């Protein structure tokens, strides 16, 4: 009996433009179990948000899923129409977006937006709608009176939390979150993360959490996926990836974040910029910025190699020439 709820296999997403296609997500595969917390980390433009939307079937032209499958609870979501998807949407899988100010309809009250979601799946009575809406608001620590407020009347933190409340209306099996804390200050960020984790423990839903802040998510995730230029560069349990990163990019990311409690080390950024996906560098996409680059890195594109329980996309790690 499988505990698996999500099986993404070979997913690729292209942006189809008038002068050709740009591959934003390249051959991503992973599985997710019930109640698991997966963190996806990477720089801006690495494709992590595109990946999320691809999984949730929310891509908009010119983005297209070109290959791969997304098996959610056994059904392949790729290729289904909106109508077919609506059976699954929100009831089993919901979404939390980055900026609640942009993700909430500015002309409808919070309560009305909750009601929309509830009424789209079954015909609940008015009392049921009111009761459930109030319940989820309380779960995130907001007084249900704010159901009558408009998005612009709430503070940033409250807005974000009401989005999370909305995502839990049907207690779905999977909640996909796209940088939900990025618009908040550091203190609110952590408070929100703690709350999400608590809710997760209570209600048992799985989470895919996308962010650029690796240290933030590493406290809460079970597994960590590092993305670069549309590809998975490192993927394994959070403890392993965070404590003993193997890929030069992951190491670079970690060295860029200061540790509050650890010893003082000099911060090092990663020089250079992410590649232009319309014409990526030959061989390994990270080679222009990699401190350990050798000739073969420019000639061969690395695949994902398994090292113990972690997947790493690096030729030198694979052949052992790059030690810890």
């Amino acid at each position, binding site marked *: 009996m499988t505990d698996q709820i999500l099986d993404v296999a070979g997913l690729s997403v292209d942006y189809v433009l008038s002068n050709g296609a740009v591959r934003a997500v390249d051959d991503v595969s992973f599985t997710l179990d019930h109640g698991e917390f997966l963190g996806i980390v990477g720089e801006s433009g690495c494709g992590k948000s595109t990946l999320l*939307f691809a999984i*949730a079937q*929310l891509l*908009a*032209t010119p983005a297209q899923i070109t290959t791969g499958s997304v098996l959610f609870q056994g059904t392949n979501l790729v290729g289904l129409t*909106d109508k077919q*998807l*609506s*059976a*699954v*949407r*929100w*009831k089993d899988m*919901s*979404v939390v*977006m*980055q*900026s609640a100010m*942009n*993700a*909430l*309809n*500015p*002309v*409808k009250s919070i309560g009305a937006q909750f009601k*929309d*979601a509830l009424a*789209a*799946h079954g015909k609940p009575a008015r009392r049921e709608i009111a009761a459930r809406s109030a319940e989820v608001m309380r779960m995130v620590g907001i007084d249900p009176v704010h159901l009558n407020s*408009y998005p*612009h*009347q709430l503070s940033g933190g409250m807005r974000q939390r009401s989005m999370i409340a909305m995502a839990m209306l049907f207690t779905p099996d999977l909640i996909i979150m796209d940088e939900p804390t990025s618009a908040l200050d550091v203190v609110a960020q952590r408070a929100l993360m703690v709350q999400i984790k608590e809710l997760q423990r209570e209600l048992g839903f799985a989470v895919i959490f996308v962010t650029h802040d690796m240290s933030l998510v590493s406290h809460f995730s079970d597994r960590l996926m590092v993305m670069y230029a549309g590809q998975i560069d490192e993927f394994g349990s959070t403890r392993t990836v965070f404590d003993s990163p193997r890929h030069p990019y992951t190491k670079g990311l970690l060295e860029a974040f200061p540790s509050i409690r650890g010893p003082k080390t000099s911060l090092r950024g990663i020089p250079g910029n992410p590649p232009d996906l319309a014409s990526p560098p030959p061989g390994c996409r990270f080679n222009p910025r990699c401190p350990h680059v050798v000739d073969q890195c420019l000639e061969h594109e690395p695949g994902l190699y398994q090292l113990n329980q972690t997947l790493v996309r690096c030729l030198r790690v694979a052949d052992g020439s790059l030690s810890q």
Partner: protein
Amino acid sequence: MRYVLRRLGFFILTLWAALTLNFLLPRLMPGNPATAMVAKFHGELSPGEMHSLEILFGLNTHQNIAQQYVSYLHQLLTGNLGISLSEYPQPVSSVIGSAIWWTLGLVGVTTVLAFILGTGIGIVSAWRRGSRLDSVVPPVFVVTSALPYFLVGIVMLLVFGITLKWFPTEDAYYVKTDTPGFNATFIQDVVNHAFLPALSLLITLIGTWILTMRNTMITTLAEDYVRMARAKGLPGWRIMFDYAARNAILPNLTGFAMSLGFVVSGAILIEDVFNYPGVGFMLLQAVYSEDYPLMQGLFLLITVAVLVAILVADVLTALLDPRTRESR
């Protein structure tokens, strides 16, 4: 409500500006044109009527400009628009009164129709991006929105009025044979006569509104909250109306009201082509016969009407957009 008060203030300011413009224009023209007009009608006016003309146009007065201005405003605000010279001795206000209903009917109905149809088509066209409907809509309406209003009127007149003889080609009703009243023949007659002018006006107006609505809608559809609505599994029509259209329409409301200036231009030209006895037609006749008091009166009327419409649109925006209700 601060928003509404601000708009009300703007309304009053613009009204004042229009009145002042009206006051200054004849006085700024080289050789006050009103002098010639008065010379023409000199013998026929009573002293009282002469006086009101002097106040309107600043002739023969011993008052300085500031005093003239005050008497001018006073006279206008008491509703005295002067005496029409071409329809002497009727006062301007009653001359206008006879034409107003025709224009209101023609322009009012057509504008509302154009708005409803225009926004509707614009919304659906944006929703079905890339479909056959959408590939036809922009080019067709880019062309129609650039057409001069009178051209559409002329073509309509030529094809349906003169060549095919399906509709009458001038006036609001058969002046010689009909008696106005609420009888079936008269009403049918009015509709018959109004059809071509209304259609011409509709065709010219609708293009811009379709295009503006479509463009705003396309931008709105790219917003996160529309994507979120999809994520929630909401039915398509609800997303289109409740999430997209409701937001897309807001910036356009005031724009629609502002475009009333163009509706008015169109109405004037169409009335000219079809000899439709509305306010626009009357304005032109007034210009030809140099009936300056009537010209002024009509200009003020048209301006006030447009300003009121804009104010109404502002109030509507306040009602529909909860963000404007916050005091800022």
